[in-house]
Structure formats: C-alpha cells, structure tokens
C-alpha cells in the first residue's frame, strides 16, 4: 500500500449497516465456519442503529504485546498486525486489560486470545464491506507518526460517541446512558 507496505483498517461507524457480513467473512477465513463470536471483528450493537465494528486498532506502541507475560504476542513486521502464538497464549487476559479499546477476546471454544491478523494484508472483512458498497471499513496505508492509539476506544465509549453523532445529544442520552 505505501512505502512500508503496512495497512490499517479505517472504520466509518456511521456507515455500518449492521449486516455483519464482516463477521461472516472473518470467521469463514479463520475458522472455516460462520461463527460470529470467533470472528476477529465483532459488531457491537448496544443500541439499534449504533453498530460498532470492533477490531484491533494497531496502536503504534502495541500495549497488548508489551503486557503479554507469556510472549505469545508479537508484531508482524510485514503487515503491522498483532500475531498470536496460540501455543504460548495462556488466556490470562492481560492483553485485554492493556488494550485501550478492550478489543482482544477469548476464542469462544479454545484457550487462547484472538486478535485481527489483517488476513496477512488482505482483510476479508474490508472486502465484504466494500463489495456491498457500505464503506464502513476501508483499507488504508499505515502512516508513520499517526497516533492510532488515540482512536482506540471501548465499544461502550464508541457507542456513546456515535449515538450522539447519529441521534443528537439529547436523544442519545435517552437511548443509552
């Protein structure tokens, strides 16, 4: 994509249709099944209409990798994605605590964490979203010096923020407080 070849998945929350075809594409690619909870991207919908596609923000300083005592997490030099070594992961949850967006979650059936690996640079979720022209997920080049960490928020925080944008402050408070 750019000089360093690293990509980033930009999300435009207001465009998310809630079709969750990103979850289908992701779980088919990684698990061979339609399995929403095993998807590395999960669409949160605490409020109907406020759909939050939630996946790794790829913070520039990777606090999750820092926090991992089992050395199960590393950064893929080529894509910039966080890599989970499932043989080392102890499912302790320290990475979840360290993540400013609380993105990582346990695999629903196995004893390790799952984090978006960018499908090796060709994210299936973005393809699914673009194919349907929703444009809630976009593939962009990773820019050096930009603080991706500043975008990392929890589903709860994002819900409050996007609800305000969509409904207006007053109504947002009424639907989610």
């Amino acid at each position, binding site marked *: 994509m750019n000089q360093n070849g690293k990509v980033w998945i930009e999300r435009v929350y207001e465009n998310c249709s809630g*079709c969750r075809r990103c979850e289908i594409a992701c779980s088919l690619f990684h*698990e061979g099944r339609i399995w929403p909870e095993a998807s590395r991207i*999960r669409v949160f919908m605490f*409020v*109907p*209409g406020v759909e939050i596609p939630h996946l790794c923000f790829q913070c520039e300083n990777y606090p999750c990798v820092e926090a991992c005592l089992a050395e199960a997490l590393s950064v893929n030099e080529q894509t910039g994605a966080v890599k989970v070594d499932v043989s080392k992961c102890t499912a302790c949850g320290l990475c979840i605590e360290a993540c400013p967006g609380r*993105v990582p979650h346990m695999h629903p059936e196995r004893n390790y964490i799952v984090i978006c690996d960018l499908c090796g640079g060709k994210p299936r979720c973005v393809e699914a979203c673009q*194919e349907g022209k929703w444009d809630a997920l976009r593939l962009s080049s990773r820019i050096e010096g930009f603080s991706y960490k500043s975008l990392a928020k929890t*589903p709860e925080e994002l819900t409050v923020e996007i609800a305000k944008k969509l409904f207006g402050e007053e109504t947002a408070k009424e639907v*989610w407080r």
Partner: protein
Amino acid sequence: MKGYAGKFLEVDLSNEKIKETSFPEEILREYIGGRGLAAKILWDRLGKKWETIDPLSPENILLVLTGPLTGYFPGTKVCVSGKSPQSNGVIGSTIAGEFGVDLKCAGYDGLIITGKAEKPSYIFICDGHVEIKDATPIWGRKARETLRFLVKKSVEEVKAIKPNYGEVKEPSILHIGPAGENRTRVAAVVAKYAHGAGYGGYGGVMGSKNLKAIVAKGFGPLPEVYDRDEVIRIFDEISKRNFEVEGFRRWGTGKGGYHFGAETSSEPVRNWQEEWHNMESFRGEEFDKYWIKKYWGDFGCPVTCLKLAVLKEGRFRGAICDNPDYELQAYLGANLGIFKAEDNIYISYVSNELGLCGIQGGAVLGFAAELYQRGILTKEDLDGLELEWGNAEAFAVLAEKIAYRQGIGDILAEGVYRAALKLGEMKGTNLLKYVVHEKGVAIGAHGVRSGKDFAKDISYACSVQAGDHTSLASIDDGRSGEISTILSDSAVYCNFVSFALDDMKPLFKLYEAVTGWSLSEEEWYGEKGLRILQLQRALLLLGGPDRQWKPKIDDDNPQRFWEPLPSGPYKGKTVDRETFERNRLEYYRLVGWDENGVPKPETLRKLGLHDVETKLREVGLLN
C-alpha cells in the same frame, strides 16, 4: 443432522421448568422448521381440542423457531407462531434480526413456550445456561427503555458466566411493549426498535404468558452443514444478485407510500375509503432527509433495505423509527390521512414504542377515524379526542389508549374485526362494511381492486394466513403461490432477499447443501409444502373459541373491496365476482379442497394426514 442445532428448548412458564427436546429426522425432513414445524407441533399438541383453546390463555403454545437455512441464507429471520388471537388458526410470523443466529449458536433450533409465568418474566439463554428471570422492573415499559435495561443487564450476566472472555457483545432480544403486555390482539413481537412479527398477534400471546422478552446469546458456530463450499458458493451467488438491485437497496420499500397510491391505486387511504392519492409530500425523497442510516439491515443481509429515521427537530423531536417502510407509510400514513413524512415517522415511532403492529394497529386507528368521520363514534366516545384525518397527535393518543386498554382503547385493542362486532352491537348497526380484514386479520397494504398490485382477487380470501400480504394465494403456473412463502417461512430466511432471484432453484440447492437432504420443487409443491398448507387450513377452519370461519362465506374479500374504487385512474374498478368465484374454485381444486374449501379426504390421506381427516369429520366439516 446438518444445518440444525438438533435441540429445542421447552420452557414451561407455569411450573418454571426448562428442558431440552428434539424431533426425529423424519419430522424435520417433512416440516423443515419455522412455520411448517409450528403447524405440526400445534397440531400434535393442541389439535384435538383446538376449537376450545383461547389463544390468549396459558393453554396456548408460543413458538419461536428457526429453520435450517437461518444463518446460511444471506438475510436472517426467525419465525414466531402459536394459535393466533386474530385468525384462531396458525400464522407463521417472521421477524428479522440476529435472534435466530444467536439461538442456533447457543445450540438451539427453537423455543416451545407453554403455560403462564406467575409474575412478569423473561427467558435468558446463554449457550446451555437457560433461566427464567424477573421482568418486573420493565413491565409496562416501552421499547427503548426495555432494550436499554435488557442489554445492560444481559451483558453483565453473560460476563458473569464467562468472566475472562473480554468485552461481551449484546445478546439478541425479542420483546413486547405495553400492547403485548395488555394482551391486545394488535401487538407484535419486536426485535430492535421496530422489527416486528406482527401478523398473528403473538405479542399478545407473549403478554398473556407474562413473558416480556427472550434474550439469547450463543458463543458457538452455526451448526455444521453438509457441503460447506456449495453453501458458500450459493450464499455468494444470492448476495451478488442482490448487490445489483440498486433501487431496492437504495429505497427499500420506502417509495411505496407514493407509488402504491399514485401509480397502482392499491394503498389504504383513510381506512380504504379510497386507494388512490397523489400526494407529492409523500414521495420517498421526502423521507430520505430523516434517515440517519441509509442502508440498514440484519445478519448476513446483502440488501440492507431498512433505513433508520430520526426526527432531530420540530415538535416530534427525539422520535426514532425503522424506515418507515411501505406498510407503515400506508397504514400509519395514508390510511390515517397523514401525508407528511415527519408525522408518519412520529406516529410509527409511537406505535413501535408501544409494541403495536404497524399494520393491525394502523388498521384499527383508521377504522376508528372513519367511525368518527361518520359520527358513529363521538368525541365523548373517544374521551374528548377529536380524531380528524391527518392529526398525528390525536392518533398517538389513541394508540396509547389501545396499548393500555384505556377507555375506547379497550375495545379497539381487539383488532378491527372484533372491535367492529363489539362496537356494532353497542351502536346497534353493522360496522363490518368499514373493516378491511380477512378472517380477523387486517389485510396488508396492497389492495386488490385496481388489479395493478401483486395482490389479486383471491390472494387474501384463500390464504391460510388470511390478511398476510407476504403469504398470498395464487394459481399462477398451475401451483399455489402460497406454498412458495411456506418455504421461506419454514426454512426461515428473508423472502425480500429472494425476490432478486430469477427462480427458486438456488433456494432448493441451498437447502440440499445445508442439510444434505434432497428436496425437489415437485416434492415441495406437490407434497411437503402442500402438507403444511393442509395443516394450516384445517386449523384455520377449526378456529374457535370466539369465532369459526365458514369457508363458503368467509373465503371472501371484505365488503369494501367489492365496492368500485371511488377515485383515481382506476375509478370504478373492482374485482369481478365471476372471475373471483372461478379462481377460488380453481384454487380449491389445485390444493385438493372440495367445493366448500375443505381439504378432501383423499388429499389428506395421500399426504398421510389421517388424523386431520378424523378431526374434520368429528366437527362436521367433512361428512
């Protein structure tokens, strides 16, 4: 078994007992799931005493069923059923959302809910962890508050079950509003804010069981399928076809409010007194500016034909509502003399908040307004309300009265047909001529008089789901059109997504790839689908306890549909009586009913429905 989770949950609310149950492969092969399986379960468990069972009593069974295609077809629904308090038959009422997927991922194909809870309750499902919980804090609450409470509480509860999981996505929720709680016959089972299973009146059935909501969270994958690659191929093929349907994706049915009035003259206008209008203020473009989501949908949907409307300014500020789609534009718009997008969104929002079905609720509001117009209902009857056409605020007040059964609302809560009988008795006059219903079900917003809409002469009169505009009887191609709908309602997928297909072949192929069981079109139309149709027909004719339909009299269009259209380009037109009777007879012949519309003994025997024959003889429907 492939495509099925293989287990159903049986919840006895009276005794607070929960158990798992399953059906033999043979039953699932024949009745598929959803609507078909609902008819089978209801027949087996309640058939013998069907005519004595009050749909709003604890004896009724509430069914929430997925089908084998739920989750694998791009466009997900779940089917709600039971004995209908509208038709006294069985209606398969489908509703969009993630509920069906969450349920299957939790390991269940459906819920069979019996009895009545002692106090307001909700059912909580998180994989194998199933509980009946207290709903007292939200009993009486409207949609927004109910959802906010249940989402927050359920997320905490799921976190407690899976403490180290990380952030927990909200479970899927089916709920009812005050209209359901107060056992009105015009209440929907609701998902999100305004996705509703409206036809049938199962919101009232839920209410009669003291059941406020069902909450489901599944962590597993969808069940295994027979041929994974073929499933993915067909999923993609159906999706691609739908990506091409730009107009429908852009507008959903939201251009219908103008189109079906101005172009096809088939829209209810002021309680069907007319079916034509050409109000420019009701064009789709007038709604567009209120949409905060131009493409909105549910799990797997390639179309996302829904739109989300919000009023950010004006006197109705704060209203949030799905679309309104065509049905709501019609029934809560033109039908009430409302031709302003803003007012239509507002009244739709009010109706949604109360858990009213937009169609059944809108029909009864329009009926009341016509009686007011004619001076049959007075201001005093309406507790001082001036129910003028177009007055959104007055209709909102009346909607509240209906949902809470206050004053005149208590009668109107019975739905158009029963309200007309009761008010007619009170006023000493026949009011059925102002009611557009089919066997107790207010007819969908597609009139038959102009002949220009997809609903035609016998569409409603011969349907086993009566007024349901998604389940129309037809004799095109020498087979019953209603059996096509039985497939979507039984395999449980969104029929709107299937409309983009040239034919039904991909659906049968998908069924085979998911289940590994063969199913040909011939087998469906000539046997399996037909069998489900017979069961529904038999249960509809058994009816009771408050009303039994006589096919010779009641397989008919409402009186108003026989009056020629009074205005518009098709002024003077209506269905020709002779054509109607010829087509009705032809339909009876096609589906194996006698000239009275009763399933023939040989039809029932051929389909293995011997016990249905016995029952029909017992009650004198067959000699």
